[in-house]
């Protein structure tokens, strides 16, 4: 049995590239949140922007958010993984350039070309606009996604190269020798295990996504090349679901790397940890049918698989991570600052956010709840209070002035504003869903409107708090590049 002790490692500042990723992420995140607020206020009948703008904003918000959290997640992963393996700076920056190119294409498509078929570009909608947008606009949207995908393929190939070089194979990156053989305590650190998993699933997802995008582009211009709509939907959801799931697996690396620095307790990759990551590597690829439970045309076994794997995959990493974090924190006398608070609450957000999906993944429930606001209620919880909280925690960490720096009351207030705002905002979605409010409707029935109004107000609180986080980070950019001890040692350590 391996014994685990904590070995302190020097605390490194972020490279300029990582900061570029984070700054862009912060700005775009804020902009997309404002777009979200506009949509929610439209549903609440506070403002009246009209259906066209609602769907344009919905398309931008969906594509923009998924893209930008992927970018932010990649920054977290790159920062920490780069301390174990040798990554290529040029590829990292090439990904950013391709990303921005794709963003410009998507913005052009939506803002200039009026494309508003949703970020899921579900076949055959992009090609059947009935005159509302041009072929060129649809092509520019799908082309933009394709360009962003190419950037991520390059990034993941570089990560695969680096991990294989250091550990001798992606199987070893997942710690298979220690998982299936005796645990000699030399398994790769959690950051490497998580990056390996993300790299495997994203490479597969992106190749599938690129294939369907190219096919849809061909179909757009030569419609006689018919695509099986069911197959297209399956491929799109496979790609989309893997990609958005992978985002939180990248960001959680911040938790694995930073929390132990506070309490000086190790977060080692033991057998249970490795087993859960390996299991999820496989399951994450078979879980997407839980979005398709209402498509009766799919074969039955396929939907049952979605149901079962959906149940199974909810837990391994979540429990291992949640339990691991408890073990790191329990009776450690940890000092709570903005970073440790946000990272800890992110696990809460992740766990709470997974529950509505778990419920909705049950076929009988799904018939009633799917396509209601219940679903946005689920993913906004785990993405905002889980994933985005991890990214802000990381930002606070990089910008922390010194080991014993105290947080100002404004930051602490913003933290609570963020938690309460998010909970209120997402509860309004969930409750609306329970009352039967359909998702993706610009106009709501009168009895749904009260929830929309409450939701808008909580969203404002949430955005105000995020503004504080972002300004604080931008103001401390200079510190973020330096190497120094940031984590305040737990009381039991700092004698």
């Amino acid at each position, binding site marked *: 049995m391996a014994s685990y002790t904590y070995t302190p490692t020097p605390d490194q500042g972020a490279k300029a590239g990582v900061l570029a990723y984070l700054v862009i992420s912060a700005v775009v995140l804020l902009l997309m949140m404002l777009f979200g607020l506009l949509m929610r206020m439209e549903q609440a009948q506070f403002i009246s922007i009209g259906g066209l703008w609602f769907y344009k904003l919905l398309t931008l918000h969906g594509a923009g958010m998924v893209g930008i959290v992927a970018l932010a997640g990649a920054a977290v992963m790159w920062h920490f993984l780069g301390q174990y393996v040798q990554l290529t700076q040029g590829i990292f920056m090439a990904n950013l350039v391709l990303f921005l190119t794709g963003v410009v294409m998507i913005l052009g498509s939506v803002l200039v070309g009026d494309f508003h078929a949703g970020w899921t570009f579900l076949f055959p909608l992009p090609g059947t606009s009935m005159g509302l947008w041009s072929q060129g606009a649809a092509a520019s949207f799908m082309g933009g996604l394709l360009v962003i995908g190419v950037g991520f393929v*390059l990034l993941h190939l570089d990560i695969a*190269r680096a991990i294989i070089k250091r550990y001798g194979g992606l199987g070893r990156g997942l710690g298979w020798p220690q998982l299936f053989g005796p645990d000699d305590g030399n398994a790769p650190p959690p950051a490497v295990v998580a990056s390996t998993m993300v790299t495997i699933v994203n*490479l597969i997802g992106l190749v599938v996504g690129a294939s369907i995008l190219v*096919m849809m582009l*061909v179909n757009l211009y030569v419609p*006689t*090349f018919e695509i099986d709509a069911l197959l297209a939907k399956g491929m799109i959801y496979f790609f989309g679901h893997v990609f958005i799931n992978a985002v939180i697996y990248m960001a959680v690396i911040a938790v694995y790397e930073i929390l132990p620095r506070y309490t000086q307790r190790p977060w080692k990759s033991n057998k249970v940890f490795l087993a859960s990551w390996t299991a999820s590597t496989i399951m994450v690829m078979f879980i997407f049918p839980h979005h398709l439970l209402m498509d009766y045309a799919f074969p039955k076994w396929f939907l049952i698989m979605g149901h079962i794997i959906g149940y199974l995959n909810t837990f391994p990493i979540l429990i291992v991570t949640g339990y691991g974090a408890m073990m790191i924190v329990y009776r450690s006398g940890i000092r709570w600052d903005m970073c440790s608070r946000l990272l800890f609450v992110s696990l809460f957000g992740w766990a709470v956010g997974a529950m509505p999906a778990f419920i909705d993944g049950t076929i009988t429930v799904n018939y009633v709840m799917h396509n209601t606001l219940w679903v946005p209620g689920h993913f906004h919880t785990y993405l905002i209070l889980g994933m985005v909280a991890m990214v802000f925690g990381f930002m606070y960490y990089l910008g922390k002035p010194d080991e014993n720096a105290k947080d100002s009351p404004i930051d602490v207030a913003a933290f609570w504003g963020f938690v309460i705002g998010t909970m209120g905002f997402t509860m309004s979605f969930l409750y609306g869903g329970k009352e039967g409010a359909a998702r993706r409707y610009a106009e709501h029935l009168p009895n749904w409107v009260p929830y929309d109004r409450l939701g808008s107000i909580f969203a404002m609180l949430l955005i105000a708090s995020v503004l504080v986080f972002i300004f604080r980070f931008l103001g401390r950019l200079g510190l973020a590049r330096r190497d120094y001890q940031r984590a305040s040692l737990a009381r039991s350590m700092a004698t």
Partner: protein
Amino acid sequence: MSSHMLVQMPLLAVIGIVACRMLPVRLQDSILVKVGGSVPCVMVALFASSYWMLPRALDAALNDPLAELAKFLSLPLLVGFPLVLAWRRLTLIGRGFVWTNFISMLAVLGWLYIVAPVRVCNSYLVNDQESAGWYMVIISVLIFLWWLGTLMVGGGMGPDKHDSSGSGTTLA
């Protein structure tokens, strides 16, 4: 059609690969330097192989002896040969790019053949076209699985440094 596209043409490229491998390493290196490095080699291979994916190129090869000659020359010389030259210098990123590009192109081309509303080659029947399409999709899936497998067990790295040559003998 399947044997034309999926047996004869790949074998022609393999001839180029084998021929290049038989040259002494020093000669390979000096040719690589003369033609401008590995990127141009990959680009040439990419464009030449793309051309032979076009249905009308297949038709031309069957009807026009000149085009047939061009096929017999270009596939070994412009696809197999430059790929081997470049391969020795490519790291996993370059090789992965070639493989992922090749795999998605093969899969999409196969798919296009399966759903094409018309007969795309004058020389072949519609059902030929469809079965060739299915073979392409299946082959691309198999290649993808094999390639991922090599990553899992840790083959397929390519040379460690950009300026050193690998053996060029591993595929992944």
